[in-house]
């Protein structure tokens, strides 16, 4: 419950921090690059302006802290007991989505030169992070975050079917809970498409299963319980299908997400150095 509240607070904080400079600077950001240069708001919102530069510094600090703390927490064995890893991940996601967003505002939606490498690295890293988070959420795990094996998943499904049978008093097969056919050993792309499709269809599928159960003569508490069991089974079936390609993809993803983040940080360091060299030291 507390964790859920914390999550909401983080989202609210994200929105608040993101909205303030956007709303404030919107009249400036709507201008063309040339118009901006001659706008009185240029002093504030230009990449070198007080607000613009400040956003860049703040965003970069968020990125450095977000990447640094999560990586260190994950990799240094002595820190393994400091908080739940999923909490650190939430913090990582908070900083590493808000930071890039602030950096985007810093650029004024206009990126040229070598710093573009950092920028696009950042964009790719964030995009991959968002995608990774989506995939990660769909890999069946124990409460401690350990990925489940295929055997464990199939055993759970069998358990579910047995539960349904004892609830209804007859075999699950007689309840017309047939699920749409799934592709055999799909590749990563096919699996990803399937995952998205499943997410999009889940509500309709629940409605169809409820109707099927009503036709089979179920009602009241029994119907509710059987319906959630049937849904969990459908998700389990999906996960069994996705397990292999997603776990495979996630391995590659790791080799992608972090190196690009490092590239980004290196180029940002160059960018900061050049800026400082030419006298752009913000308030310092």
């Amino acid at each position: 419950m507390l964790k859920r509240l914390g999550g909401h607070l983080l989202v609210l904080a994200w929105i608040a921090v993101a909205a303030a400079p956007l709303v404030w600077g919107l009249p400036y950001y709507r201008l063309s690059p040339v118009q901006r240069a001659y706008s009185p708001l240029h002093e504030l919102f230009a990449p070198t302006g007080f607000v613009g530069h400040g956003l860049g510094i703040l965003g970069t600090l968020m990125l450095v802290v977000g990447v640094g703390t999560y990586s260190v927490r994950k990799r240094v064995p002595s820190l393994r007991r400091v908080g739940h890893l999923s909490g650190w991940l939430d913090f990582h996601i908070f900083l590493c989505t808000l930071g890039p967003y602030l950096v985007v505002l810093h650029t004024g939606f206009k990126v040229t030169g070598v710093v573009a490498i950092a920028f696009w690295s950042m964009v790719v890293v964030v995009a991959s992070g968002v995608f990774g988070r989506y995939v990660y959420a769909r890999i069946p795990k124990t409460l401690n975050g350990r990925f489940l094996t295929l055997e464990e998943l199939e055993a759970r499904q069998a358990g579910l079917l047995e539960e349904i049978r004892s609830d209804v008093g007859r075999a699950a097969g007689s309840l017309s809970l047939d699920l749409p056919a799934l592709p055999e050993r799909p590749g990563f792309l096919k699996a990803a498409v399937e995952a998205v499709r499943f997410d999009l269809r889940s509500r309709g599928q629940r409605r169809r299963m409820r109707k099927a159960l009503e036709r089979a003569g179920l009602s009241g508490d029994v119907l509710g319980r059987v319906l959630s069991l049937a849904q969990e089974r459908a998700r389990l079936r999906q996960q069994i299908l996705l397990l292999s390609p997603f776990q495979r993809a996630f391995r590659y993803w790791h080799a992608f997400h972090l190196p690009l983040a490092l590239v980004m940080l290196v180029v940002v360091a160059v960018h900061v150095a050049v800026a400082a060299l030419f006298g752009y030291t913000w308030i310092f």
Partner: protein
Amino acid sequence: MDLLSRGPARAWALVAAAFVLVGAGARPASAQLISPGKLAAAHADLEGVRHCTGCHELGQRGVSDAKCLACHTPLAARIRARKGYHATVADRGCASCHKDHLGRDAELVRFDTAAFDHATTGYRLEGKHAGVECRSCHKPEFVADPGVRAFKSRHGTLATTYLGLGTTCVGCHRGDDPHHGQFAGRACSSCHGTGGWKEAPGFDHSDTRYPLRGRHADVACGKCHRTGRDASGTWVRYTGLAFSACTSCHADPHHGAMGGTCTSCHSTAGWTRVNRSAMESDFDHATTGFPLEGRHAELSCASCHVPGTAPDTAIRMTWRAADRGRPYPPPLADRCSSCHLDYHGGAFEARGDSGACRACHGQDAWKPSTFDLFRHDRETDYPLQGAHRAVPCEGCHRNPALGQSELTFHFDSVTCRSCHGRTDDPHRGQFSDRSCESCHTDASFRAAERFDHASTRFPLTGAHRDVPCASCHREEKLPDGTTMVRYRPLGTECSDCHANRGVRR
């Protein structure tokens, strides 16, 4: 699963691959490594990471004004000389107005021309200049400053610069000299302002060799300064006009009759107003064909030439010339009647000379007339003799007693009684049966030279011959109180005269 645990070689290969992949997407041209955007076309040769410090000073935000001006030498010179607009904003950074790194096509000179105060350039736009498009004057061909011209030509920005114009009129108006070089060597501004070429507020005709006086001041320029024409077009002639004589511009309405020098009578106050003092002292009236002689020479001009003010009312001059709309008599005023009324009411018009005044009058005075006794003897049917020669003319020609209120030169008869008979018959009709001449001559009425007492009924004989006339012809008192001498009828008897006092026997 953990990247680092799989060996550094593979990890860094992936890092490099990612670097190249993302780098290729961003296409960082070598020139654009750390540049925030492409430089404008005029600064294109400053593009590239090696040229950053061409404009920027390390450790200093923005661009260095000193570095800008190190290249923009014409501007630097003007700022040093405190001339022109940029000298007034020298405390601002160049980049506060001229912003770069906004792309090749971006304008480096970008300002609101409508709101720009041109006075800050040291050349205030006034009059017609105020409404003119900037580029009407700021054209490449009008850039006069050689330094600006060279600099801007070298950088291909001559067409876009606002620098380098001169402040002389011909700097821009060189093609439009409507005077065709008449004022070569003189600044347009010595006459014209910026209000328009048609006006010349700086021009004062008084400064010319022909100051405008009197009515000339009100005359439209074009009345004297006419349009000239030659192969190169038309223009108004302002210089080289002849003005020594009035006739340089004016036609002579007298056709030379009054002489060629108008100013001897006229002034610039107007043709209809003659310069009286100048005219009276200088004008040679003989040039009119009517030399002023005698009394005419003594008169003021106004005596004849100003209607209604003739002081000599006796002349009874009338204003003849007014009928012709000119304030002087006709040039050929050879007749007295041009000015004078015929006092004699046309009495002499039947004469061979139509009654010319000069037949009897000179110019010295109407009176006395030149018609003297001798001419009376010669030229009339009534030569004056005897006492008539001593009688003043009016005695016969204007004698109220004779019923003459005016001069009278015509008589129906020339008998004595024509004049004398009406009032002065001392005989009271005693001799109405005979003429005066039968007794008197025109030597005198006192004597009766032609009377012979022998021709009467009583010839004088004896002692009667020595008796004075009055002894017999006594004076009688008439009933009206007057007297007359009784000549007839008298008795011829002795007793008619002598008293019967007794005869001495």
